């Protein structure tokens, strides 16, 4: 009884809280310093910005079958096909309006040629809505996922770059660690 009373008067529970927060001040900070110094490297299962794969000869894999465009629940993909000089059907236009994309992965799953894939990209902020509409050219440039088990799922040291090509964060490869 008296003990409880004294605890109330001298705010004992608050004192306990202060002890806890005092100790927390000396713990290691868990923040990832993105975009200034560090960057997250996703796992290979990560469903990021799409890319178009090419085969060993550097030839586009896509045969413009339009299955991806058809299954996409958000109507992201627009395809126009033509027949190239070898008589193969190829896309003349392959456009993805990624503002609408839900990254559900259906297009990747349905593709018979493994042409469209999810990549590692997650930085595509832009000053214009058109920046998120990816043409075939852009889709070919996008980066595939990291497959090296040493590298994926790590925090890599990086540089923040702002120049005439836009703003981006690039790994400088100096350091990487697992955040847990």
């Amino acid at each position, binding site marked *: 009884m008296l003990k409880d009373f004294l605890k*109330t*008067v*001298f*705010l004992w529970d*608050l004192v306990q*809280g*202060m002890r*806890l*927060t*005092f100790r*927390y*001040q*000396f*713990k*290691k*900070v*868990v*923040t990832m*310093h993105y975009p*200034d110094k560090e960057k997250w490297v996703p796992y290979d299962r990560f469903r990021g910005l799409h890319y178009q794969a090419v085969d060993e000869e550097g030839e586009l894999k896509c045969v413009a079958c339009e299955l991806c465009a058809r299954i996409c629940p958000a109507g992201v993909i627009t395809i126009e096909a033509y027949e190239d000089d070898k008589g193969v059907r190829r896309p003349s236009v392959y456009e993805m309006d990624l503002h609408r994309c839900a990254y559900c992965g259906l297009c990747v799953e349905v593709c018979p040629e493994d042409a469209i894939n999810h990549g590692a990209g997650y930085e595509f902020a832009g000053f214009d809505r058109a920046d998120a509409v990816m043409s075939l050219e852009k889709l070919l440039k996008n980066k595939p996922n990291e497959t090296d088990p040493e590298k994926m799922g790590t925090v890599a040291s990086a540089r923040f770059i702002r120049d005439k090509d836009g703003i981006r964060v690039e790994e400088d490869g100096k350091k990487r660690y697992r955040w847990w």
Partner: protein
Amino acid sequence: MEALLASDIFWVVFKSFLAVAIIFGLPLPFTWLERKIAGHIQVRPGPMRVGFHGVLQPIADGLKLFLKEDIIPTGADKFLFKAAPFMALIPYIAIFVAIPMSDEAYVSNMDIGVLYVLAIGGLSIYGIIMGGWASNSKYALLGGLRAAAQMISYEVAMGFAVIGVIMMAQSLNMQDIVLAQQGGFLNWNIMPHKQLIAFFIFMVAGFAEANRIPFDIPEGEGELGAGFHTEYSGMRFALFALAEYAAMISISALAAVLFLGGWTSPVGFLDFVPGIVWFVLKTLFMVYLFMWTRFTWPRYRYDQLMTLGWKFLIPLGVANVLITGLFVIDF
């Protein structure tokens, strides 16, 4: 005689300017410090991007606030609305006049220093009430009313706490109070055989006076928007923030003087260190206490706040005065 008078005036003006400059200058580094402490308590780094470890962040913030539009809401009482932030800030600057920073560094050594400090400190609440009233907004008005209620309940407790100290020193003069605590930390008023209970009451009341967590119900974001400064923007808002920091600094300084032995050194062999260093260290420690608690404790509910004030602190204060009287009385 003439020359002496001129130099006297010069010194008073110089010291006053210095005190004002300190109070205006300190909140900048303190906002940075507070955010850093907040960060590390929450296991994150706090401001990092502007300057080395974010030291220039307060300047960026100040610049931003300076460039903001100064909005006066329709239906507001224009004069009161504009005057309120100054009214909140000036008393805390005035408090510093009476606080002795060392045996020589003070603006004025008043014989009624403690009374002056309590009286002036109580004035600043008018700034908050005025701000709340003049804004023509229900949230601001409620915030102002809460501030008034809080001030009334906690001024009393704070007064009782200070009475204990005055009884120990047998004087209202701040220098005398410091001198009474001379001779090592065992003589400080914070020690259990002196005025530990008064210190506790003083600090709780001080948190309430400064409107800091856990007693920041006048601005209670959860229920009142931003309380009394809901309608303020730009520089006027910054002045309210400045007033909060000034309050924190002056209450810390006051606690250092009244309970932590002011500018006296904690142990005899450290006497050669100038008094002002001790004073600054003690004040900084108290400021740290303010920041540390801010990121530890939740806000008190309004009725809990009143219960704590009237049912615990004031009886405790009275008991403390009576017990102190028993020991101090000269038969």
